């Protein structure tokens, strides 16, 4: 473990701990008189009909799927971007290596677009 790791850990613990304490203080200070009507979920004032846990449309899933793939692409780009201006010479080669990588994925984006996967409907 280095100092940097310990810093991250301290920030994390402090963030969680502080908010736990804030909630605990609130727990001691606030009133708590739940009634049946306070505990119903809000549906514009009328009694809720049925559970809210229904099947949702597939379109959210498609966006998430495309996001995973592009996220991995962006992850690959970070090491490339860091060294791009740090090495001596070979920039055109580095540039073309990346251009091929990006173009293949742009092809995928165009495919998704043409197939209507980016349409909300």
């Amino acid at each position: 473990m280095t100092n940097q790791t310990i810093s991250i850990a301290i920030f994390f613990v402090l963030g969680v701990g502080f908010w736990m304490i804030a909630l605990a203080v609130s727990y001691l200070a606030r009133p708590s008189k739940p009634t049946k009507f306070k505990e119903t979920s809000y549906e514009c004032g009328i009694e809720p009909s049925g559970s809210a846990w229904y099947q949702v449309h597939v379109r959210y899933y498609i966006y998430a799927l495309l996001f995973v793939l592009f996220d991995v692409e962006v992850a690959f780009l970070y090491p490339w971007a860091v060294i791009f201006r740090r090495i001596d010479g070979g920039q055109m080669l580095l540039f073309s290596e990346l251009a091929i990588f990006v173009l293949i994925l742009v092809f995928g984006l165009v495919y998704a677009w043409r197939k209507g996967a980016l349409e909300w409907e």
Partner: protein
Amino acid sequence: MHTILHATVFGVLALATLGGAVKVISTRSIIHAAFWLFPVFAGIAGFYLYLDAQFLAAMQVLIYIGAILVLIVFAVTLTRNATSTDEAQTNGLFIPVLLAALVLVYALGTTVFNHLWPIESNVWLDAVPLSAAVPGVMVTDVSALGLVLLSQYLLPFEIASVLLLAAMVGAIVLARKERTPAATAGVAAVEAAPADVRELSNV
């Protein structure tokens, strides 16, 4: 003294990872199974940080928690009974899965025990940077990763993009039906349905 501290950190991370994993397979509601993946992924990111592999840790959070876990949650909301706890827990594939798991354990085990790790056991407990243990073998630096990725491992790097493309095309083909007359008829049927049914199916 250090050993206790390191053992505590390791124990907490291992508990989060393995405990979460056990809950993933034992909880009965699949949306909870998806949520329990969070401590698993976060614990693994914690291990990477603990080993001073910051780039890997960031990637673990960025991709596994930020992307794949969200994808899994969306996938679960597609199912009919995401919160139902009376679905069957097993699907009769116990033997094949056990075999597959054993093969995986064997493969990982042979790698772990046969690979010549560049550090003596317990060296890391005293917070020696991995890179200092054996010079020139391990570098936990993003620029070093970029260098090898774009020279030595250029071909795998480019193949990765083809792999991503294949995954994208496959996903679109599977998840998205072409607008055939039959599909359009299905939409028309939905639109002709009573309003409350339509509302639920068009969320």
